[in-house]
Protein backbone atom coordinates (compact mmCIF):
# COMPACT_ATOMS: atom_id res chain seq x y z
CA UNK A 1 0.00 0.00 0.00
CA UNK A 2 2.81 2.42 0.86
CA UNK A 3 4.50 1.80 -2.47
CA UNK A 4 1.20 2.45 -4.26
CA UNK A 5 0.80 5.78 -2.48
CA UNK A 6 4.41 6.70 -3.16
CA UNK A 7 3.99 5.89 -6.85
CA UNK A 8 0.82 7.98 -7.09
CA UNK A 9 2.46 10.93 -5.34
CA UNK A 10 5.35 10.76 -7.79
CA UNK A 11 2.94 10.78 -10.73
CA UNK A 12 1.37 13.88 -9.25
CA UNK A 13 4.44 16.01 -9.70
CA UNK A 14 4.36 16.39 -13.50
CA UNK A 15 0.64 17.15 -13.38
CA UNK A 16 1.17 19.88 -10.79
CA UNK A 17 3.96 21.44 -12.81
CA UNK A 18 1.79 21.29 -15.90
CA UNK A 19 -1.16 22.83 -14.07
CA UNK A 20 0.86 25.72 -12.69
CA UNK A 21 2.41 26.33 -16.12
CA UNK A 22 -1.04 26.31 -17.70
CA UNK A 23 -2.40 28.85 -15.21
CA UNK A 24 0.67 30.99 -15.65
CA UNK A 25 0.43 30.93 -19.43
CA UNK A 26 -3.30 31.64 -19.47
CA UNK A 27 -3.13 34.49 -16.96
CA UNK A 28 0.12 36.15 -18.02
CA UNK A 29 0.50 35.42 -21.71
CA UNK A 30 -3.03 35.16 -23.15
CA UNK A 31 -4.14 38.69 -22.24
CA UNK A 32 -0.99 40.14 -23.83
CA UNK A 33 0.12 42.69 -21.29
CA UNK A 34 -1.82 42.38 -18.00
CA UNK A 35 -0.69 45.87 -16.96
CA UNK A 36 -2.19 47.31 -20.14
CA UNK A 37 -5.41 45.38 -19.64
CA UNK A 38 -5.73 46.65 -16.06
CA UNK A 39 -5.05 50.26 -16.99
CA UNK A 40 -7.35 50.40 -19.97
CA UNK A 41 -10.05 48.32 -18.28
CA UNK A 42 -10.17 45.90 -21.18
CA UNK A 43 -9.66 48.09 -24.22
CA UNK A 44 -11.32 51.37 -23.39
CA UNK A 45 -9.87 54.30 -21.49
CA UNK A 46 -6.59 56.14 -21.72
CA UNK A 47 -3.36 55.87 -19.72
CA UNK A 48 0.08 57.41 -19.56
CA UNK A 49 3.36 55.64 -20.21
CA UNK A 50 4.69 56.27 -16.71
CA UNK A 51 1.73 54.58 -15.02
CA UNK A 52 2.10 51.64 -17.39
CA UNK A 53 5.75 51.00 -16.59
CA UNK A 54 5.09 51.50 -12.88
CA UNK A 55 2.35 48.89 -12.94
CA UNK A 56 4.54 46.53 -14.96
CA UNK A 57 7.24 46.84 -12.31
CA UNK A 58 4.67 46.29 -9.55
CA UNK A 59 3.28 43.18 -11.25
CA UNK A 60 6.79 42.06 -12.14
CA UNK A 61 5.78 41.63 -15.78
CA UNK A 62 8.81 43.62 -16.98
CA UNK A 63 10.98 40.59 -16.32
CA UNK A 64 11.51 37.55 -18.60
CA UNK A 65 8.69 34.99 -18.49
CA UNK A 66 10.65 32.09 -17.03
CA UNK A 67 11.89 34.24 -14.14
CA UNK A 68 8.33 35.39 -13.45
CA UNK A 69 7.17 31.79 -13.37
CA UNK A 70 9.91 30.55 -11.06
CA UNK A 71 9.37 33.55 -8.82
CA UNK A 72 5.65 32.84 -8.59
CA UNK A 73 6.12 29.14 -7.79
CA UNK A 74 8.78 29.99 -5.19
CA UNK A 75 6.33 32.46 -3.68
CA UNK A 76 3.61 29.79 -3.58
CA UNK A 77 5.96 27.47 -1.69
CA UNK A 78 6.87 30.23 0.79
CA UNK A 79 3.17 31.21 1.04
CA UNK A 80 4.11 34.71 -0.03
CA UNK A 81 3.18 35.80 -3.54
CA UNK A 82 3.14 39.52 -2.84
CA UNK A 83 0.24 41.88 -2.30
CA UNK A 84 -3.19 42.24 -3.80
CA UNK A 85 -3.41 45.06 -6.35
CA UNK A 86 -6.65 46.26 -4.81
CA UNK A 87 -6.39 45.88 -1.05
CA UNK A 88 -2.58 45.98 -0.92
CA UNK A 89 -2.64 43.30 1.75
CA UNK A 90 -0.66 40.06 1.33
CA UNK A 91 -2.57 37.76 -1.05
CA UNK A 92 -2.24 34.77 1.24
CA UNK A 93 -3.59 36.43 4.37
CA UNK A 94 -6.68 37.53 2.41
CA UNK A 95 -7.16 34.01 1.08
CA UNK A 96 -6.49 32.33 4.44
CA UNK A 97 -9.42 34.11 6.02
CA UNK A 98 -11.68 32.81 3.25
CA UNK A 99 -10.85 29.13 3.52
CA UNK A 100 -13.11 28.22 6.49
CA UNK A 101 -16.43 29.27 4.87
CA UNK A 102 -15.67 27.37 1.65
CA UNK A 103 -14.49 24.29 3.54
CA UNK A 104 -17.58 24.33 5.73
CA UNK A 105 -19.91 24.73 2.76
CA UNK A 106 -18.23 21.87 0.92
CA UNK A 107 -18.18 19.46 3.86
CA UNK A 108 -21.70 20.22 4.97
CA UNK A 109 -23.05 19.64 1.46
CA UNK A 110 -21.10 16.39 1.13
CA UNK A 111 -22.66 15.11 4.37
CA UNK A 112 -26.15 16.21 3.33
CA UNK A 113 -25.78 14.60 -0.10
CA UNK A 114 -24.69 11.25 1.34
CA UNK A 115 -27.52 11.21 3.86
CA UNK A 116 -29.99 11.75 1.01
CA UNK A 117 -28.38 9.83 -1.83
CA UNK A 118 -27.44 6.46 -0.36
CA UNK A 119 -30.86 5.48 1.05
CA UNK A 120 -32.58 6.77 -2.09
CA UNK A 121 -30.25 4.85 -4.37
CA UNK A 122 -30.60 1.64 -2.38
CA UNK A 123 -34.39 1.84 -2.07
CA UNK A 124 -34.75 2.70 -5.77
CA UNK A 125 -32.76 -0.38 -6.72
CA UNK A 126 -34.44 -2.70 -4.23
CA UNK A 127 -37.88 -1.51 -5.37
CA UNK A 128 -37.06 -1.14 -9.06
CA UNK A 129 -39.94 0.07 -11.27
CA UNK A 130 -42.30 0.78 -8.38
CA UNK A 131 -43.79 4.22 -7.80
CA UNK A 132 -41.09 4.96 -5.20
CA UNK A 133 -38.39 4.25 -7.75
CA UNK A 134 -40.06 6.55 -10.30
CA UNK A 135 -40.51 9.39 -7.81
CA UNK A 136 -36.89 9.18 -6.70
CA UNK A 137 -35.66 9.04 -10.29
CA UNK A 138 -37.66 12.06 -11.34
CA UNK A 139 -36.37 13.97 -8.31
CA UNK A 140 -32.80 13.08 -9.17
CA UNK A 141 -33.02 13.86 -12.90
CA UNK A 142 -34.60 17.16 -11.86
CA UNK A 143 -31.69 17.83 -9.55
CA UNK A 144 -29.26 17.17 -12.37
CA UNK A 145 -30.99 19.55 -14.76
CA UNK A 146 -31.50 22.53 -12.46
CA UNK A 147 -28.35 24.66 -12.38
CA UNK A 148 -27.37 25.22 -8.75
CA UNK A 149 -27.35 28.97 -9.08
CA UNK A 150 -31.02 28.81 -10.00
CA UNK A 151 -31.93 26.36 -7.23
CA UNK A 152 -30.07 28.73 -4.91
CA UNK A 153 -32.03 31.69 -6.22
CA UNK A 154 -35.30 29.81 -5.72
CA UNK A 155 -34.35 28.95 -2.14
CA UNK A 156 -33.58 32.60 -1.41
CA UNK A 157 -36.87 33.60 -3.03
CA UNK A 158 -38.76 31.05 -0.95
CA UNK A 159 -37.10 32.17 2.28
CA UNK A 160 -37.63 35.83 1.52
CA UNK A 161 -41.30 35.45 0.66
CA UNK A 162 -42.17 33.10 3.50
CA UNK A 163 -39.92 34.13 6.36
CA UNK A 164 -38.64 37.56 5.32
CA UNK A 165 -35.23 35.92 5.66
CA UNK A 166 -32.27 37.54 3.94
CA UNK A 167 -28.75 36.13 3.79
CA UNK A 168 -26.93 37.69 6.79
CA UNK A 169 -24.32 40.15 5.62
CA UNK A 170 -21.68 39.25 8.17
CA UNK A 171 -20.04 35.88 8.53
CA UNK A 172 -20.09 34.16 11.93
CA UNK A 173 -17.58 31.42 12.66
CA UNK A 174 -19.03 28.05 13.67
CA UNK A 175 -16.83 28.08 16.77
CA UNK A 176 -18.17 31.40 17.99
CA UNK A 177 -21.88 30.97 17.44
CA UNK A 178 -22.87 27.60 15.93
CA UNK A 179 -26.56 28.43 15.65
CA UNK A 180 -26.00 31.68 13.80
CA UNK A 181 -23.38 30.02 11.60
CA UNK A 182 -25.66 27.12 10.68
CA UNK A 183 -28.56 29.41 9.85
CA UNK A 184 -26.21 30.96 7.31
CA UNK A 185 -24.75 27.76 5.87
CA UNK A 186 -27.61 25.28 5.96
CA UNK A 187 -29.42 26.63 2.87
CA UNK A 188 -26.52 26.81 0.43
CA UNK A 189 -25.33 23.42 1.70
CA UNK A 190 -28.73 21.92 1.05
CA UNK A 191 -28.76 23.32 -2.49
CA UNK A 192 -25.35 21.87 -3.24
CA UNK A 193 -26.13 18.66 -1.35
CA UNK A 194 -29.26 18.16 -3.46
CA UNK A 195 -27.33 18.52 -6.69
CA UNK A 196 -24.59 16.15 -5.54
CA UNK A 197 -27.12 13.65 -4.23
CA UNK A 198 -28.80 13.53 -7.63
CA UNK A 199 -25.57 12.32 -9.22
CA UNK A 200 -24.68 9.94 -6.41
CA UNK A 201 -28.11 8.34 -6.02
CA UNK A 202 -28.29 7.60 -9.76
CA UNK A 203 -24.92 5.89 -9.56
CA UNK A 204 -25.84 3.99 -6.40
CA UNK A 205 -29.04 2.77 -8.02
CA UNK A 206 -27.42 1.49 -11.20
CA UNK A 207 -24.57 -0.16 -9.30
CA UNK A 208 -26.96 -1.84 -6.87
CA UNK A 209 -29.10 -3.08 -9.76
CA UNK A 210 -26.06 -4.67 -11.31
CA UNK A 211 -24.90 -6.31 -8.09
CA UNK A 212 -28.38 -7.50 -7.12
CA UNK A 213 -28.39 -9.71 -10.24
CA UNK A 214 -25.20 -11.50 -9.21
CA UNK A 215 -25.16 -15.15 -8.21
CA UNK A 216 -23.92 -14.58 -4.69
CA UNK A 217 -26.84 -12.29 -4.00
CA UNK A 218 -29.21 -14.99 -5.19
CA UNK A 219 -27.43 -17.41 -2.87
CA UNK A 220 -27.85 -14.97 -0.02
CA UNK A 221 -31.58 -14.76 -0.71
CA UNK A 222 -31.78 -18.54 -1.10
CA UNK A 223 -30.27 -19.25 2.26
CA UNK A 224 -33.00 -17.16 3.82
CA UNK A 225 -31.15 -14.04 4.89
CA UNK A 226 -33.22 -11.00 5.73
CA UNK A 227 -33.56 -8.26 3.12
CA UNK A 228 -31.54 -6.00 5.36
CA UNK A 229 -28.57 -8.36 5.43
CA UNK A 230 -28.70 -9.08 1.71
CA UNK A 231 -28.89 -5.42 0.78
CA UNK A 232 -26.35 -4.01 3.20
CA UNK A 233 -23.88 -6.79 3.81
CA UNK A 234 -23.81 -8.50 0.44
CA UNK A 235 -24.93 -6.01 -2.18
CA UNK A 236 -24.00 -2.57 -0.91
CA UNK A 237 -20.42 -3.46 -0.03
CA UNK A 238 -19.77 -4.51 -3.61
CA UNK A 239 -21.75 -1.72 -5.22
CA UNK A 240 -20.24 1.14 -3.29
CA UNK A 241 -16.78 1.37 -4.89
CA UNK A 242 -17.63 3.23 -8.11
CA UNK A 243 -19.98 5.39 -6.04
CA UNK A 244 -17.05 6.52 -3.91
CA UNK A 245 -14.99 7.42 -6.97
CA UNK A 246 -17.81 9.33 -8.56
CA UNK A 247 -18.66 11.17 -5.33
CA UNK A 248 -15.03 12.22 -4.98
CA UNK A 249 -14.85 13.57 -8.51
CA UNK A 250 -18.20 15.33 -8.20
CA UNK A 251 -17.22 16.76 -4.85
CA UNK A 252 -14.15 18.24 -6.52
CA UNK A 253 -16.33 19.71 -9.28
CA UNK A 254 -18.33 21.40 -6.55
CA UNK A 255 -15.38 23.69 -5.94
CA UNK A 256 -16.85 25.39 -8.99
CA UNK A 257 -20.28 25.28 -7.40
CA UNK A 258 -19.07 27.12 -4.31
CA UNK A 259 -18.24 30.07 -6.55
CA UNK A 260 -21.91 30.37 -7.48
CA UNK A 261 -23.46 29.66 -4.09
CA UNK A 262 -21.11 31.93 -2.15
CA UNK A 263 -22.12 34.70 -4.52
CA UNK A 264 -25.84 34.11 -3.98
CA UNK A 265 -25.72 33.59 -0.22
CA UNK A 266 -23.11 36.32 0.42
CA UNK A 267 -20.57 34.00 2.03
CA UNK A 268 -17.03 35.37 2.27
CA UNK A 269 -15.35 32.25 0.86
CA UNK A 270 -12.67 31.58 -1.75
CA UNK A 271 -15.19 31.37 -4.59
CA UNK A 272 -16.78 34.77 -4.10
CA UNK A 273 -13.29 36.20 -3.53
CA UNK A 274 -12.22 34.73 -6.87
CA UNK A 275 -15.15 36.26 -8.73
CA UNK A 276 -14.74 39.70 -7.20
CA UNK A 277 -11.01 39.60 -7.92
CA UNK A 278 -11.64 38.66 -11.53
CA UNK A 279 -14.09 41.55 -11.87
CA UNK A 280 -11.47 44.07 -10.67
CA UNK A 281 -8.63 42.30 -12.52
CA UNK A 282 -6.59 41.57 -9.42
CA UNK A 283 -4.27 39.14 -11.26
CA UNK A 284 -2.04 38.01 -8.34
CA UNK A 285 -5.10 37.00 -6.31
CA UNK A 286 -6.85 35.32 -9.24
CA UNK A 287 -3.98 33.11 -10.29
CA UNK A 288 -3.20 32.12 -6.73
CA UNK A 289 -6.77 31.11 -5.91
CA UNK A 290 -7.06 29.14 -9.14
CA UNK A 291 -3.84 27.28 -8.41
CA UNK A 292 -5.03 26.48 -4.88
CA UNK A 293 -8.38 25.18 -6.18
CA UNK A 294 -6.64 23.03 -8.80
CA UNK A 295 -4.28 21.71 -6.14
CA UNK A 296 -7.14 20.77 -3.82
CA UNK A 297 -8.99 19.16 -6.74
CA UNK A 298 -5.97 17.07 -7.75
CA UNK A 299 -5.24 16.00 -4.16
CA UNK A 300 -8.89 15.11 -3.67
CA UNK A 301 -8.83 12.87 -6.73
CA UNK A 302 -5.66 11.25 -5.39
CA UNK A 303 -7.30 10.70 -2.02
CA UNK A 304 -10.25 9.03 -3.74
CA UNK A 305 -7.90 6.72 -5.64
CA UNK A 306 -6.09 5.81 -2.44
CA UNK A 307 -9.33 5.05 -0.61
CA UNK A 308 -10.37 2.95 -3.58
CA UNK A 309 -7.12 1.00 -3.54
CA UNK A 310 -7.42 0.52 0.21
CA UNK A 311 -10.94 -0.86 -0.14
CA UNK A 312 -10.17 -2.99 -3.17
CA UNK A 313 -6.71 -4.60 -3.05
CA UNK A 314 -6.91 -5.62 -6.73
CA UNK A 315 -6.29 -2.01 -7.75
CA UNK A 316 -2.92 -1.79 -6.01
CA UNK A 317 -1.30 -4.43 -8.17
CA UNK A 318 -2.29 -3.25 -11.61
Amino acid at each position, binding site marked *: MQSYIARRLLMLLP*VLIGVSLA*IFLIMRVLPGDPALVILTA*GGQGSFDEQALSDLRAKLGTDRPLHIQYVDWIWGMLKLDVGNSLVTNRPVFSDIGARVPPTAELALLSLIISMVIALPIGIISAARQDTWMDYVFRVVS*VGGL*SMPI*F*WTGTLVVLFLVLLFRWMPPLTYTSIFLDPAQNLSQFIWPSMVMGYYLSAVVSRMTR*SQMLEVLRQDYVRTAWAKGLSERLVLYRHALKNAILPVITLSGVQFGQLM*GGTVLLETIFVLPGMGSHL*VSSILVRDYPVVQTIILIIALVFVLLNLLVDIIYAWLDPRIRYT
Partner: protein
Amino acid sequence: MSTQDAIQILSLESVRRKPGFLGTVWQFSRSKPMGAIGGVIIIGMILSAIFAGVISPYDPYRMYVSDLFAPPGTKYWFGTDNFGRDIFSRIVWGSRISLAVGVVSVAVGATGGAMLGLVSGFLGGKFDAISQRLVDIMMAFPVLILALTVVAALGPSIQNVIIAIALVMVPPGNRVVRSASLAVREMQYVDAARAIGSRNFRILFVHILPNCLAPYIIVATVNLGWAIVVEASLSFLGLGTPPPQPSWGAMLSAEGRSYLEKAPWIGIFPGVAISLAVFGFNILGDALRDVWDPRLRR
Protein backbone atom coordinates in the same frame (compact mmCIF):
# COMPACT_ATOMS: atom_id res chain seq x y z
CA MET B 1 -35.67 -27.25 -46.63
CA SER B 2 -37.64 -27.17 -49.86
CA THR B 3 -37.17 -24.62 -52.59
CA GLN B 4 -40.55 -23.23 -51.68
CA ASP B 5 -39.35 -22.40 -48.15
CA ALA B 6 -36.23 -20.77 -49.43
CA ILE B 7 -38.20 -18.54 -51.73
CA GLN B 8 -40.51 -17.62 -48.89
CA ILE B 9 -37.58 -16.64 -46.67
CA LEU B 10 -35.97 -14.65 -49.45
CA SER B 11 -39.17 -12.76 -50.10
CA LEU B 12 -39.55 -12.08 -46.37
CA GLU B 13 -36.07 -10.60 -46.30
CA SER B 14 -36.93 -8.32 -49.16
CA VAL B 15 -40.11 -7.22 -47.43
CA ARG B 16 -38.23 -6.37 -44.25
CA ARG B 17 -36.45 -3.35 -45.66
CA LYS B 18 -34.20 -1.18 -43.59
CA PRO B 19 -36.36 1.55 -42.03
CA GLY B 20 -35.76 5.06 -43.36
CA PHE B 21 -34.89 8.06 -41.24
CA LEU B 22 -38.47 8.65 -40.12
CA GLY B 23 -38.89 4.96 -39.40
CA THR B 24 -35.83 4.94 -37.21
CA VAL B 25 -37.06 7.99 -35.32
CA TRP B 26 -40.46 6.31 -34.86
CA GLN B 27 -38.86 3.12 -33.51
CA PHE B 28 -36.66 5.13 -31.14
CA SER B 29 -39.66 7.07 -29.81
CA ARG B 30 -41.59 3.86 -29.24
CA SER B 31 -38.85 2.18 -27.25
CA LYS B 32 -37.50 5.28 -25.47
CA PRO B 33 -40.39 7.67 -24.76
CA MET B 34 -38.26 9.74 -22.36
CA GLY B 35 -35.61 10.20 -25.02
CA ALA B 36 -38.31 11.28 -27.45
CA ILE B 37 -39.52 13.89 -24.96
CA GLY B 38 -35.95 15.17 -24.75
CA GLY B 39 -35.82 15.32 -28.52
CA VAL B 40 -39.07 17.31 -28.67
CA ILE B 41 -37.75 19.80 -26.10
CA ILE B 42 -34.56 20.26 -28.09
CA ILE B 43 -36.43 20.69 -31.38
CA GLY B 44 -38.62 23.29 -29.67
CA MET B 45 -35.53 25.13 -28.52
CA ILE B 46 -34.00 25.03 -32.00
CA LEU B 47 -37.24 26.36 -33.54
CA SER B 48 -37.41 29.15 -30.99
CA ALA B 49 -33.80 30.07 -31.75
CA ILE B 50 -34.41 30.14 -35.50
CA PHE B 51 -37.76 31.93 -35.43
CA ALA B 52 -37.05 34.17 -32.44
CA GLY B 53 -38.09 37.23 -34.40
CA VAL B 54 -41.46 35.71 -35.31
CA ILE B 55 -42.26 34.16 -31.93
CA SER B 56 -41.31 36.95 -29.56
CA PRO B 57 -44.10 39.52 -29.19
CA TYR B 58 -41.75 42.38 -28.22
CA ASP B 59 -38.26 43.65 -28.97
CA PRO B 60 -36.01 42.00 -26.32
CA TYR B 61 -34.04 45.22 -25.83
CA ARG B 62 -36.92 47.68 -25.79
CA MET B 63 -37.60 49.17 -22.36
CA TYR B 64 -41.27 49.83 -21.65
CA VAL B 65 -40.68 52.45 -18.98
CA SER B 66 -44.33 52.66 -18.02
CA ASP B 67 -44.42 48.91 -17.38
CA LEU B 68 -41.50 48.27 -15.00
CA PHE B 69 -41.96 45.05 -13.00
CA ALA B 70 -45.23 44.22 -14.75
CA PRO B 71 -46.40 40.84 -13.41
CA PRO B 72 -47.00 37.94 -15.80
CA GLY B 73 -50.33 38.32 -17.58
CA THR B 74 -51.96 38.58 -20.96
CA LYS B 75 -49.93 41.62 -22.01
CA TYR B 76 -46.53 40.34 -20.91
CA TRP B 77 -46.74 36.54 -20.60
CA PHE B 78 -43.77 36.18 -18.26
CA GLY B 79 -43.86 39.76 -16.91
CA THR B 80 -41.26 42.48 -17.37
CA ASP B 81 -37.95 43.10 -15.62
CA ASN B 82 -36.50 46.11 -13.79
CA PHE B 83 -36.00 47.93 -17.12
CA GLY B 84 -39.48 47.12 -18.36
CA ARG B 85 -38.20 44.61 -20.90
CA ASP B 86 -40.48 41.70 -21.84
CA ILE B 87 -39.09 38.56 -20.17
CA PHE B 88 -40.78 36.13 -22.57
CA SER B 89 -39.17 37.81 -25.59
CA ARG B 90 -35.82 37.83 -23.85
CA ILE B 91 -36.08 34.11 -23.10
CA VAL B 92 -37.00 33.34 -26.72
CA TRP B 93 -34.02 35.36 -27.99
CA GLY B 94 -31.86 33.91 -25.22
CA SER B 95 -32.36 30.43 -26.67
CA ARG B 96 -30.41 31.64 -29.68
CA ILE B 97 -27.42 32.61 -27.51
CA SER B 98 -27.52 29.45 -25.40
CA LEU B 99 -27.82 27.20 -28.42
CA ALA B 100 -25.20 29.04 -30.46
CA VAL B 101 -22.67 29.03 -27.63
CA GLY B 102 -23.44 25.38 -26.85
CA VAL B 103 -23.29 24.11 -30.42
CA VAL B 104 -20.19 26.06 -31.46
CA SER B 105 -18.21 25.24 -28.33
CA VAL B 106 -19.10 21.55 -28.47
CA ALA B 107 -18.43 21.45 -32.22
CA VAL B 108 -14.99 22.96 -31.69
CA GLY B 109 -14.01 21.55 -28.28
CA ALA B 110 -15.56 18.10 -28.12
CA THR B 111 -14.84 17.42 -31.79
CA GLY B 112 -11.26 18.59 -31.44
CA GLY B 113 -10.83 16.45 -28.34
CA ALA B 114 -12.46 13.53 -30.10
CA MET B 115 -10.18 13.79 -33.16
CA LEU B 116 -7.17 13.89 -30.86
CA GLY B 117 -8.51 10.87 -28.98
CA LEU B 118 -9.18 8.99 -32.22
CA VAL B 119 -5.62 9.45 -33.42
CA SER B 120 -3.95 8.92 -30.05
CA GLY B 121 -5.93 5.76 -29.31
CA PHE B 122 -5.02 4.40 -32.75
CA LEU B 123 -1.36 5.35 -32.78
CA GLY B 124 -0.58 4.74 -29.10
CA GLY B 125 3.03 5.19 -28.04
CA LYS B 126 4.58 8.58 -27.46
CA PHE B 127 1.87 10.59 -29.18
CA ASP B 128 -0.74 9.01 -26.94
CA ALA B 129 1.33 9.47 -23.78
CA ILE B 130 1.94 13.16 -24.41
CA SER B 131 -1.61 13.98 -25.45
CA GLN B 132 -3.00 12.13 -22.44
CA ARG B 133 -0.78 14.11 -20.06
CA LEU B 134 -2.09 17.32 -21.65
CA VAL B 135 -5.65 16.17 -21.10
CA ASP B 136 -4.73 15.22 -17.50
CA ILE B 137 -3.72 18.82 -16.92
CA MET B 138 -7.03 20.12 -18.28
CA MET B 139 -8.84 17.67 -16.04
CA ALA B 140 -7.00 18.97 -12.99
CA PHE B 141 -9.44 21.88 -12.92
CA PRO B 142 -13.09 21.79 -11.94
CA VAL B 143 -15.04 22.58 -15.12
CA LEU B 144 -16.37 25.97 -14.05
CA ILE B 145 -13.00 27.06 -12.65
CA LEU B 146 -11.21 26.31 -15.93
CA ALA B 147 -13.80 28.29 -17.85
CA LEU B 148 -13.53 31.13 -15.33
CA THR B 149 -9.74 31.18 -15.73
CA VAL B 150 -9.95 31.64 -19.46
CA VAL B 151 -12.62 34.32 -19.23
CA ALA B 152 -10.65 36.07 -16.46
CA ALA B 153 -7.68 36.29 -18.80
CA LEU B 154 -9.53 37.21 -21.98
CA GLY B 155 -12.38 39.31 -20.60
CA PRO B 156 -16.12 38.66 -20.89
CA SER B 157 -17.58 38.45 -24.39
CA ILE B 158 -19.53 35.82 -26.30
CA GLN B 159 -16.48 34.87 -28.32
CA ASN B 160 -14.33 34.36 -25.22
CA VAL B 161 -17.08 32.40 -23.50
CA ILE B 162 -17.12 30.05 -26.51
CA ILE B 163 -13.33 29.68 -26.33
CA ALA B 164 -13.52 28.93 -22.60
CA ILE B 165 -16.30 26.35 -22.95
CA ALA B 166 -14.67 24.73 -25.97
CA LEU B 167 -11.57 24.17 -23.86
CA VAL B 168 -13.63 22.60 -21.10
CA MET B 169 -15.25 20.26 -23.65
CA VAL B 170 -11.95 18.78 -24.85
CA PRO B 171 -11.33 16.16 -22.12
CA PRO B 172 -14.71 14.38 -22.15
CA GLY B 173 -14.74 14.05 -25.96
CA ASN B 174 -11.14 12.96 -25.92
CA ARG B 175 -11.41 10.26 -23.26
CA VAL B 176 -14.52 8.60 -24.63
CA VAL B 177 -13.39 8.49 -28.26
CA ARG B 178 -9.86 7.42 -27.31
CA SER B 179 -11.10 4.39 -25.42
CA ALA B 180 -13.43 3.51 -28.30
CA SER B 181 -10.56 3.89 -30.74
CA LEU B 182 -8.32 1.69 -28.58
CA ALA B 183 -10.96 -1.04 -28.61
CA VAL B 184 -11.71 -0.82 -32.33
CA ARG B 185 -8.00 -0.94 -33.18
CA GLU B 186 -7.87 -4.54 -31.95
CA MET B 187 -10.77 -5.71 -34.15
CA GLN B 188 -10.18 -8.33 -36.81
CA TYR B 189 -11.44 -6.16 -39.63
CA VAL B 190 -8.66 -3.70 -38.87
CA ASP B 191 -6.15 -6.54 -39.15
CA ALA B 192 -7.81 -7.53 -42.40
CA ALA B 193 -7.58 -3.99 -43.75
CA ARG B 194 -3.92 -3.91 -42.84
CA ALA B 195 -3.39 -7.29 -44.53
CA ILE B 196 -4.76 -6.05 -47.84
CA GLY B 197 -2.32 -3.17 -47.65
CA SER B 198 -4.42 -0.22 -46.42
CA ARG B 199 -2.45 2.68 -45.06
CA ASN B 200 -2.90 4.09 -41.55
CA PHE B 201 -4.77 7.12 -42.87
CA ARG B 202 -7.32 4.98 -44.67
CA ILE B 203 -7.74 2.59 -41.74
CA LEU B 204 -8.26 5.50 -39.38
CA PHE B 205 -10.94 7.25 -41.40
CA VAL B 206 -12.67 4.37 -43.17
CA HIS B 207 -12.60 1.70 -40.48
CA ILE B 208 -12.05 3.24 -37.07
CA LEU B 209 -13.82 6.60 -37.30
CA PRO B 210 -17.29 5.25 -38.17
CA ASN B 211 -17.12 2.85 -35.24
CA CYS B 212 -16.29 5.62 -32.79
CA LEU B 213 -19.20 7.81 -33.89
CA ALA B 214 -21.83 6.47 -31.47
CA PRO B 215 -19.91 7.22 -28.26
CA TYR B 216 -18.99 10.62 -29.71
CA ILE B 217 -22.60 11.57 -30.43
CA ILE B 218 -23.68 10.49 -26.94
CA VAL B 219 -20.96 12.56 -25.29
CA ALA B 220 -21.68 15.55 -27.52
CA THR B 221 -25.40 15.46 -26.70
CA VAL B 222 -24.90 15.33 -22.94
CA ASN B 223 -22.18 17.97 -23.09
CA LEU B 224 -24.39 20.35 -25.04
CA GLY B 225 -26.51 20.49 -21.91
CA TRP B 226 -23.36 21.07 -19.88
CA ALA B 227 -22.19 23.84 -22.17
CA ILE B 228 -25.50 25.63 -21.70
CA VAL B 229 -25.13 25.42 -17.92
CA VAL B 230 -21.54 26.71 -18.01
CA GLU B 231 -22.52 29.62 -20.27
CA ALA B 232 -25.40 30.46 -17.95
CA SER B 233 -23.16 30.17 -14.88
CA LEU B 234 -20.54 32.49 -16.35
CA SER B 235 -23.17 35.02 -17.40
CA PHE B 236 -24.79 34.71 -14.00
CA LEU B 237 -21.51 35.75 -12.38
CA GLY B 238 -21.26 38.69 -14.77
CA LEU B 239 -18.35 37.08 -16.61
CA GLY B 240 -20.15 35.64 -19.61
CA THR B 241 -22.40 37.12 -22.24
CA PRO B 242 -22.26 40.86 -21.55
CA PRO B 243 -25.49 42.84 -20.96
CA PRO B 244 -27.82 43.91 -22.42
CA GLN B 245 -27.83 40.76 -24.55
CA PRO B 246 -30.58 38.37 -23.49
CA SER B 247 -28.66 35.46 -21.95
CA TRP B 248 -30.60 33.15 -19.61
CA GLY B 249 -27.83 33.16 -17.03
CA ALA B 250 -27.42 36.93 -17.09
CA MET B 251 -31.16 37.39 -16.53
CA LEU B 252 -30.73 35.65 -13.17
CA SER B 253 -27.63 37.62 -12.19
CA ALA B 254 -27.20 40.06 -9.33
CA GLU B 255 -29.38 42.72 -10.90
CA GLY B 256 -32.41 40.51 -11.36
CA ARG B 257 -31.92 38.92 -7.97
CA SER B 258 -31.99 42.20 -6.07
CA TYR B 259 -35.64 42.62 -7.08
CA LEU B 260 -36.72 39.10 -6.16
CA GLU B 261 -39.06 40.20 -3.42
CA LYS B 262 -40.76 42.72 -5.64
CA ALA B 263 -40.82 40.71 -8.86
CA PRO B 264 -40.15 36.99 -8.31
CA TRP B 265 -40.91 36.20 -11.97
CA ILE B 266 -37.57 37.77 -12.94
CA GLY B 267 -35.85 34.94 -11.08
CA ILE B 268 -38.13 32.11 -12.12
CA PHE B 269 -38.71 31.91 -15.88
CA PRO B 270 -35.11 32.08 -17.15
CA GLY B 271 -34.22 29.27 -14.73
CA VAL B 272 -37.11 27.17 -16.04
CA ALA B 273 -35.75 27.68 -19.56
CA ILE B 274 -32.23 26.58 -18.60
CA SER B 275 -33.46 23.55 -16.67
CA LEU B 276 -35.77 22.46 -19.47
CA ALA B 277 -33.00 22.68 -22.05
CA VAL B 278 -30.52 20.78 -19.90
CA PHE B 279 -33.19 18.21 -19.01
CA GLY B 280 -33.87 17.70 -22.73
CA PHE B 281 -30.23 17.10 -23.61
CA ASN B 282 -29.72 14.86 -20.55
CA ILE B 283 -32.59 12.49 -21.20
CA LEU B 284 -31.95 12.36 -24.95
CA GLY B 285 -28.30 11.54 -24.22
CA ASP B 286 -29.33 8.84 -21.73
CA ALA B 287 -31.71 7.27 -24.24
CA LEU B 288 -29.13 7.32 -27.03
CA ARG B 289 -26.67 5.65 -24.69
CA ASP B 290 -29.15 2.92 -23.83
CA VAL B 291 -29.85 2.24 -27.47
CA TRP B 292 -26.35 2.41 -28.88
CA ASP B 293 -23.99 1.45 -26.14
CA PRO B 294 -25.40 0.01 -22.92
CA ARG B 295 -21.88 -0.58 -21.62
CA LEU B 296 -21.30 3.16 -21.30
CA ARG B 297 -24.15 3.38 -18.85
CA ARG B 298 -23.19 4.99 -15.57
